[in-house]
C-alpha cells in the first residue's frame, strides 16, 4: 500500500512542497493577525513569527521529510544529482567503473571456468552415487594403456561385470575416433564406446528413438549393430530430422542404423570434451589381456558408501587379477600385475584431463584474480575516501542551508551504490566473454575444448557485494563523520592552509602501501610465468623442430602379410624421400615430444630397469639432426636376418653401462606379449634428446632399426617424420604421390613444431593471463597513487602557496611530493617482497627452469613498480610546483 502511494505520488513533489509552503505561510499570517489584534505593530508581529519559525526552508525540509510519500521522488532526485556529480568528474566515475568491472568480471570468469571443470556434476540422474573403479596407484606402466582414462582390460571388465555387489548397475566406456560419412568425404568424429547398461545406469532418457541397450552388444566388432548420436551431431550433421527405423549413417565405410538421440545436456563422461556418436561395445572371443582400454563406473546401491565399496573390490582383487593375468610376461612383471588392487573413487563430476592438467593453474588463477579484486577494492576505497574528504565542505554548506543529516547520508550512499551497481553490472557482462576467451585460449590445433560455461550468480554476487561494500563503506564513512561535525567548524577548517586531517590521510597511505605490495606479488607472478614460458619456448630439445611434418599412414586395406610389413614400410619411406622438396624422411614407432611413450625392461650386465625404446628407420637421426657421438649408424642391411643392434643415448650409457666403451655391450630385453625376449648389441651412441615432454629431463633411450621390429609386433600403420623446406608444399606433394603409388592408404598430417607448441598451451595461458593481471595491477597502482597525490595536493594547495610565497623553489616542492610517494613505495616494496616469497611457493610445480624465489624476477618486479610509481607521481608533483602562490592564497 505504502509503496503504491509512493509510486502514485511520483512527480508530485513540487505540488506537495508548494502545499507545505502555503500551509506554513498561512500559519504565519494567522499568527501575525492575532498578534496585531492584540495591539502589536505589523513589523513587530512579523519579526516575532519569523523568530519562532526559524529557517523556513529547514522547516519545510523537516515537514516534507515526514511525508514518506516523497520517498521515491527524492530517490529519483538524488539519482539525478549523483549522475550530475559523475558527469562533472567523468574521469573518477570511469576509473571506478572500470576497476569494479575488471575486479568482478575477472573473478567471476575464473570461477565459472573452475566450476565447469572441477565442481559441476555430470548432467545425469543422482550423480553423487556414481563411482569409478581404478587400480590404486595406476597400472605402473604394465601392458599397454590406450588412453588417459583407460583403467580396465576387457577380461578385468568381464570379471567386475559379474561381481559388483556395492553397485546397482555397472558400465564400461571409452572414447575412440570414428570415421563418419561416405569414404570419399569421410571425417573423424568423436566416438563413445559404451557397454549395454551405460545409459540405463546413468539414467539418461532418449530425446528421440531409443538409446543403446544390453542386446546391442554382440561378438561382432565391426560396429554394425547401430549407433546413438549426440544432440549437437544430430542437429548439425543430420539436420535434426526425426529418427525413424530407416535413419542410417555411414560409419567406418558401412551404413549403420541410428537408434536415437541423447538429450542436449549430455556431452559424454569427459568434462571439456564431447561425443558425436555412441556405439555398443563388442564381445570378442579372445580379448587382449594386457591392453587397458575401458573406464568402468557404477552406481552405488543405497546403504553403500565409497569406503565399503573399495573394501569389497579390494577383497575381490586377488582372485580377479589372478584370473585375468595376461600371458607372455616375465614372472616379475606378472607379480606386479597380481598385486594390483581395485578401489572405488567418486565419479559424479565425470573425468577430465583439463582438471588433471590445469588443477593448480586454476587455483593460482583464482588466487590472482582474488588479489586483483583486493587491489581494486583498495583503489575504490582510496578514490571514494579522497572524494568524500573533498566533499566535506560541500556537506557543511548544505547542512547550513537546512539539509537534514539523513538526507545527506542517503545521497552519498546513493552515489556509492549507483557506482557499485553499474560497475558490478558491467563486470557481470564481462564475465561470460572473459570465460569464453579463457577456454578458447586452451584450444590447440589438434583439439578444441567443449565446456558449457554457465553464469554463476553466487560468485558474481560475492564479488559484486565485496566491491559494493567497499564503495559504500569508504564513500559513506567520511560523509557520516562530516555530517556529524558542526557545520560551522567544518566550514571554518574547510580548506585551511595546512593538512587538517592526519588520520584520514594515514588510512589512504596505508591503502596505497597495501596496493603496491599486492601488485608486487602479481608482478612477480607474471614475470615468473612469462619467463618460465620463455624458457620452454627457447629450450633446445636436441632435435630439429622446424620444417618437420609428422605423418601417420594406415594401410590395413592393402592386406600385407606381417612378415612383409617391414619391407613395405621401407618402400614407403623410400618413396617419400624421393619426392622433390622432401629433404629426408624416417619411419618411427614413436613421435618425440608427442606425449606418448614406449618402453621395455632391460638387463645390462648386473643392472636392470626401464628404458624407452623407439623402432626407427636408418634416416631417423639425419631427419631430426641428431649427431652420432660414437660407433656406427643403422643401415638398410640391419634386419631381422642380421644381428640385432641398438643405438642408445648418453643417459642410457650413464645408467646401465659400466664398461669403458658402450660399443659392443649386450642389452637383454625381457619378454612381453608380441615382443619376444631378445639380446641386442650396442653399436652407436647419440646425445640426450627430449623424449615425451619438454619439461622432463631426457630419459634413457634405445633405438632399434625399424626393420628389426619383431614380426609379431608389426602392424599395418606407421608414423613418419618428414623434413622439408616448405612443410605445406611437401605435405601436398606426399599426399599426391602416395595416392598414386599406394592406393587406399590412409594419411594424416600435422606440423611437428605446432604439435610441440600445442603441448605448451597451459604455460602460454598462465603467461598471458598472469601478465595481463600483472599489468592491470600496475595500472591500478598508478590510478590509486595518482588519486592520493592529487588529493594530497588539493589539501595542501594553500600550504604550498605560502611556502612558495616565502621562497621555496619549484624543485623543492616537487621533491616534497615525490618524497611522500617514495616512502609509500618503499613500504609497499618491502611488504610486497615478503608476500611474494610466501605466495609464489605454490607455483613452483608450474615453473620451468626457474625457482619461485628467483632474485632476478623479484628485482625486476620491484624496479618495474618503482618506475611506474615515480611516473604516476610526477604529474601531480609537477602540478604542485605550478601552483601560483597568489591564486592559492586568494582562494582562501
Amino acid at each position, binding site marked *: 500500500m505504502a509503496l503504491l502511494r509512493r509510486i502514485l505520488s511520483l512527480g508530485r513533489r513540487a505540488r506537495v512542497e508548494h502545499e507545505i509552503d502555503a500551509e506554513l505561510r498561512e500559519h504565519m499570517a494567522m499568527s501575525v493577525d492575532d498578534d496585531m489584534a492584540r495591539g502589536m505593530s505589523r513589523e513587530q508581529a512579523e519579526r516575532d513569527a519569523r523568530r519562532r519559525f526559524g529557517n523556513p526552508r529547514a522547516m519545510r525540509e523537516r515537514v516534507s521529510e*515526514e511525508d*514518506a510519500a516523497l520517498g521515491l521522488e527524492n530517490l529519483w532526485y538524488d539519482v539525478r544529482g549523483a549522475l550530475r556529480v559523475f558527469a562533472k568528474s567523468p574521469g573518477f566515475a570511469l576509473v571506478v567503473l572500470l576497476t569494479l568491472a575488471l575486479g568482478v568480471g575477472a573473478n567471476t570468469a575464473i570461477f565459472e571456468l573452475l566450476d565447469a571443470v572441477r565442481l559441476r556434476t555430470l548432467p545425469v540422474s543422482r550423480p553423487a552415487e556414481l563411482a569409478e573403479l581404478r587400480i590404486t596407484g595406476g597400472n605402473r606402466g604394465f601392458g599397454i594403456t590406450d588412453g588417459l582414462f583407460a583403467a580396465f582390460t576387457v577380461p578385468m571388465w568381464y570379471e567386475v561385470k559379474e561381481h559388483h555387489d556395492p553397485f546397482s548397475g555397472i558400465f564400461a566406456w571409452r572414447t575412440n575416433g570414428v570415421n563418419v560419412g561416405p569414404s570419399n568425404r569421410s571425417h573423424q568424429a568423436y566416438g563413445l564406446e559404451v557397454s549395454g547398461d551405460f545409459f540405463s545406469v546413468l539414467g539418461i532418457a532418449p530425446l528421440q528413438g531409443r538409446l543403446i541397450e544390453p542386446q546391442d552388444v554382440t561378438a561382432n566388432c565391426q560396429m554394425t549393430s547401430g549407433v546413438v548420436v549426440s544432440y549437437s551431431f544430430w542437429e548439425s550433421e543430420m539436420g535434426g530430422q526425426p529418427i525413424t527405423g530407416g535413419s542410417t549413417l555411414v560409419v567406418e565405410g558401412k551404413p549403420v542404423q541410428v537408434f536415437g538421440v541423447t538429450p542436449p545436456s549430455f556431452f559424454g563422461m569427459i568434462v571439456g570434451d564431447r561425443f558425436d556418436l555412441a556405439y555398443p561395445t563388442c564381445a570378442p572371443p579372445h580379448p587382449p589381456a594386457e591392453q587397458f582400454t575401458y573406464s568402468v563406473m557404477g552406481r552405488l546401491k543405497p546403504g553403500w558408501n565409497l569406503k565399503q565399496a573399495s573394501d569389497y573390490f579390494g577383497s575381490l582383487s586377488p582372485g580377479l587379477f589372478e584370473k585375468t593375468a595376461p600371458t607372455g610376461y616375465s614372472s616379475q612383471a606378472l607379480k606386479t600385475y597380481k598385486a594390483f588392487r581395485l578401489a572405488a573413487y567418486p565419479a559424479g563430476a565425470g573425468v577430465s584431463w583439463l582438471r588433471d592438467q590445469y588443477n593448480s593453474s586454476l587455483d593460482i588463477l583464482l588466487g590472482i584474480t582474488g588479489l586483483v579484486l583486493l587491489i581494486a577494492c583498495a583503489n575504490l576505497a582510496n578514490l571514494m575516501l579522497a572524494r568524500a574528504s573533498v566533499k566535506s565542505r560541500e556537506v557543511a554548506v548544505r547542512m547550513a542551508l537546512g539539509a537534514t543529516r539523513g538526507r545527506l547520508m542517503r545521497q552519498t550512499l546513493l552515489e556509492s551504490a549507483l557506482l557499485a551497481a553499474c560497475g558490478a553490472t558491467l563486470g557481470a557482462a564481462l564475465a561470460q566473454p572473459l570465460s569464453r576467451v579463457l577456454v578458447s585460449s586452451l584450444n590447440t590445433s589438434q583439439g578444441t575444448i567443449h565446456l558449457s560455461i554457465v553464469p554463476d550468480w553466487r560468485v558474481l554476487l560475492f564479488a559484486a557485494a565485496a566491491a559494493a561494500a567497499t564503495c559504500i563503506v569508504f564513500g559513506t564513512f567520511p560523509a557520516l563523520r562530516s555530517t556529524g561535525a558542526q557545520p560551522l567548524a567544518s566550514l571554518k577548517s574547510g580548506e585551511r592552509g595546512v593538512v587538517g586531517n592526519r588520520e584520514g590521510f594515514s588510512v589512504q597511505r596505508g591503502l596505497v602501501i597495501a596496493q603496491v605490495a599486492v601488485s608486487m606479488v602479481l608482478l612477480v607472478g607474471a614475470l615468473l610465468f612469462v619467463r618460465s614460458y620463455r624458457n620452454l619456448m627457447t629450450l633446445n630439445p636436441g632435435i630439429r623442430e622446424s620444417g618437420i611434418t609428422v605423418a601417420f599412414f594406415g594401410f590395413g586395406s592393402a592386406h600385407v602379410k606381417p612378415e612383409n610389413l617391414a619391407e613395405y614400410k621401407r618402400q614407403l619411406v623410400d618413396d617419400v624421400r624421393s619426392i622433390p622438396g622432401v629433404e629426408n624422411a624416417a619411419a618411427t614407432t614413436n613421435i618425440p615430444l608427442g606425449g606418448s611413450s614406449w618402453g621395455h625392461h632391460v638387463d645390462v650386465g648386473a643392472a636392470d630397469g626401464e628404458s624407452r625404446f623407439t623402432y626407427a628407420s636408418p634416416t631417423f637421426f639425419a631427419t631430426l639432426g641428431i649427431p652420432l657421438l660414437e660407433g656406427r649408424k643403422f643401415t638398410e642391411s640391419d634386419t631381422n636376418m642380421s644381428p640385432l643392434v641398438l643405438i642408445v643415448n648418453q643417459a642410457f650409457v650413464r645408467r646401465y653401462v659400466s664398461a669403458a666403451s658402450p660399443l659392443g655391450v649386450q642389452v637383454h630385453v625381457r619378454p612381453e606379449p608380441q615382443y619376444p625376449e631378445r639380446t641386442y648389441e650396442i653399436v652407436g651412441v647419440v646425445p640426450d634428446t627430449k623424449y615425451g615432454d619438454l619439461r622432463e629431463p631426457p630419459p634413457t633411450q634405445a633405438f632399434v632399426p625399424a626393420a628389426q621390429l619383431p614380426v609379431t609386433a608389426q602392424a599395418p600403420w606407421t608414423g613418419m617424420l618428414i623434413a622439408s623446406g616448405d612443410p605445406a608444399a611437401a605435405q601436398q606433394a606426399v599426399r599426391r604421390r602416395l595416392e598414386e603409388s599406394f592406393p587406399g592408404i590412409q594419411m594424416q598430417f600435422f606440423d611437428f613444431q605446432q604439435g610441440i607448441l600445442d603441448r605448451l598451451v597451459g604455460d602460454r595461458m598462465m603467461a598471458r593471463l598472469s601478465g595481463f593481471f600483472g599489468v592491470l595491477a600496475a595500472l591500478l597502482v598508478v590510478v590509486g597513487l595518482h588519486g592520493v597525490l592529487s588529493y594530497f595536493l588539493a589539501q595542501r594547495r594553500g600550504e604550498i602557496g605560502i611556502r612558495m610565497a616565502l621562497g621555496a623553489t619549484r624543485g623543492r616542492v616537487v621533491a616534497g611530493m615525490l618524497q611522500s610517494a617514495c616512502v609509500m613505495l618503499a613500504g609497499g616494496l618491502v611488504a610486497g617482497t615478503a608476500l611474494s616469497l610466501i605466495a609464489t611457493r605454490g607455483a613452483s610445480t608450474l615453473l620451468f627452469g626457474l625457482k619461485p624465489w628467483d632474485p632476478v624476477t623479484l628485482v625486476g618486479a620491484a624496479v618495474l613498480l618503482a618506475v611506474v610509481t615515480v611516473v604516476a607521481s610526477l604529474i601531480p608533483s609537477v602540478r604542485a610546483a605550478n601552483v601560483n602562490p597568489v591564486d592559492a592564497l586568494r582562494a582562501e
Partner: protein
Amino acid sequence: MAKNDLQGALDLLILKTLSQLGSMHGYGILMHIRRVSDEILIVEEGSLYPALHRMQQHGWVRSNWAVTDYGRQAKWYALTRAGREQLASREKNWAQVVKGVDAILRFA
C-alpha cells in the same frame, strides 16, 4: 508497562484536540492547546507540523483546504477512524504513564 511513554504526549495532545474540536487547522490546534492548558503547554510550530504530516502518513488524520472564520485559506485536519482508535489506546497508555510517574514521585 505503558508504551509510547512521555514522547507520545504531543501526538496525544493533537489527537485529543482534534477529537474535541472536530476539525481544525494547525494554528487553531496550537492555540487551543495553549489556551486550554492555561499557557502551560506551548507546542512549537517546528514540532507540530512534522507531527501532523506524520500522523497523516499513518492515516490517523485526514486534511482538506478550507477558509477560516477570518477569511484565510488553511489546511484543516480531522480525525479518521484509525485516529480515534489510536487516541483511545493512547489515552489508556497515558493514564498508565501518569500512574507510574505519580508512584515514583510519591516514593519516599
